[in-house]
């Protein structure tokens, strides 16, 4: 991961975001750093208020108005925050985003065809007939066979799973190099989720498209992403190879998340619940943000905010990470 010969498509370096409120600035992201290589999938896992969606919005340059941003986001070497005019328009084609609720992101009174071809027709001056056949070909790729009919339909005529596939197909029409997927399967049934994930996985491999996959589901992220970053209270607390997260967690919060989830292959009398509730960055205590909920807390954890640092094959933001290593795995599998 630290190998500098590996090309980087997206790099986020010490990103901090504050939102203006009547009472002053409120921190929502604190010192977030990660990179994504071309064709790589990075999972971003966390609970409400952890900042995972805000991270994607910062990358896509769609932060709320008057948000204050520090740190640098580079896409293909260019500082995203400084893009203007044609460069910004080109960037919008290269980075696509899909959301949890497709129905909230499509105009209900326009046809699917109008929605799908809009970007090609307005930004790339492609003729409607050409844009439509491109759209039909893309619908075929996501498993929708009767594309001609679908283009004439309105969003309300499509099921949630079908509409999410339309959104995926649309996001791919401009041939993006990075897809920001914000909980794209959370509102779908499990069988539909499996199908949509399979489609995303295939497309990503075929097109060497990178993906930032945001989810609250640690197991789902582990299954489809090469690396996963776990967020808590606006910070990344652990980042490593997805396959290692569950068996050998480095941060107490990761272990807590994995242990709190009920298992499909067995039940226990009581789940190992994390006490308290997930905090947003501005509510987090000084020192370690997780310290108030952590069962391994020591006085020194509250002294200063821990820095994220390398351990084993990953990164962790916990001063006790080395001494806790075996113990955390035991929580998950105990």
């Amino acid at each position, binding site marked *: 991961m630290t190998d500098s010969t590996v090309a980087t498509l997206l790099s986020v370096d010490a990103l901090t975001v504050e939102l203006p409120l009547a009472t002053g600035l409120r921190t929502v992201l604190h010192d977030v750093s990660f990179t994504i290589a071309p064709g790589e999938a990075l999972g971003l896992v966390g*609970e*409400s208020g952890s900042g995972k969606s805000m991270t994607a919005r910062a990358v896509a340059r769609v932060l709320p108005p008057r948000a204050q941003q520090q740190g640098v986001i580079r896409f293909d070497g260019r500082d995203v925050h400084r893009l203007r005019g044609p460069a910004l328009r080109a960037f919008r084609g290269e980075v696509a985003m899909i959301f949890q609720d497709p129905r909230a992101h499509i105009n209900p009174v326009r046809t699917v065809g109008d929605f799908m071809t809009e970007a090609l027709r307005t930004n790339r001056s492609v003729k409607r007939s050409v844009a439509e056949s491109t759209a039909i070909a893309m619908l075929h790729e996501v*498993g929708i066979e009767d594309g001609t009919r679908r283009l004439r339909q309105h969003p309300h005529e499509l099921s*949630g799973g079908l509409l999410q596939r339309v959104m995926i197909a649309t996001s791919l029409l401009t041939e993006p190099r990075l897809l920001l997927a914000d909980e794209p399967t959370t509102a779908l*049934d*499990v*069988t*539909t*989720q*499996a*199908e949509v*994930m*399979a*489609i995303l*996985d295939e497309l990503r491999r075929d097109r060497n498209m990178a993906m930032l996959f945001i989810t*609250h*589901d*640690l*197991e*789902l992220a*582990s*299954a*489809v992403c090469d690396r996963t970053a776990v967020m808590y209270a606006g910070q990344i607390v652990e980042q490593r190879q997805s*396959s290692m997260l*569950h068996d050998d967690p480095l941060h107490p919060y990761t272990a*807590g*998340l994995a242990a*709190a*989830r*009920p*298992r*499909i*292959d*067995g*039940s*226990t*009398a*009581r*789940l*190992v*619940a*994390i*006490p308290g*509730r*997930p905090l947003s960055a501005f509510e987090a205590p000084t020192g370690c943000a997780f310290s108030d*909920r952590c069962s391994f807390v020591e006085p020194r954890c509250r002294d200063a905010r821990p820095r994220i640092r390398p351990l084993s094959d990953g990164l962790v933001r916990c001063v006790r990470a080395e001494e806790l290593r075996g113990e955390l795995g035991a929580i998950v599998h105990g």
Partner: protein
Amino acid sequence: MGDSPVSVAEPLVKVVGLTKRYGDALVVDDVSFEVAAGGSLAIVGESGSGKTTIAKMIVGLVAPTAGTIHACGHDRSHHATSTKVRRRRGGEIQIVFQDPYSSLDPRQSGFDAIDEVLRLHRGGSKVDRARRVDELGSMVGLDPRQLHALPRGLSGGQRQRVAIARVLAAEPQLLILDESVAALDVSIQAQVLNLLADIRDQTHISYLLISHDLAVVRQITEDIIVLYRGRVVERGATAAVLDDPHHEYTRLLRASVPHAGWRPTRRAAPPVP
């Protein structure tokens, strides 16, 4: 509890041939099941499988097209015809919905919401009721400040605790949990699942869990029925059905749950029961 106690051998809820039709659409098709007194049954299925319609028919929010519902020693197949019957039914079966943000009155504190149910169903002096509200509050893990806060001052998990304390105030024999933990964060969901297990240990209440989440189902139920397009396609002990599903649809559901080493696959056309 109530005027006609249920004998031990008799199931708490017995549903036979339950059917609901809206126009040409057959939403629930000849569904039968029982919930044992003190037992816990899961109804599992995806969108449109009819699971919530079944819950609504048992509570009495929707009238069945055909079939019978017998619960807590009384017939429930038809709408209540008097306030007395309606109130008795409220004391027998209660329901907790998925969304803790829309199931509470935004202008009523948890304390007042719980007290209102006590006044309607249990009576007692103001002092007695206040003591009972505090008991229920501590049972679900709400402190006095949270009990007196309006819903907007509470998190999703805290609101769901208020909703649970409120339904428990009626001392129901059956609690219907309609996706009640689905919208909660993972760490909060674990707390609420533990709470539900504790409540069953302490009160011998029965649960009917409506869910699409097989791991949650495994954690808090003993028995399961799997619905597909309004029909029961598989039933049995929860652990047995999840470990060794027989119906093609149950297998598909089971295989769709992400786990270590899972590779998502595009499926063929959905099976028809």
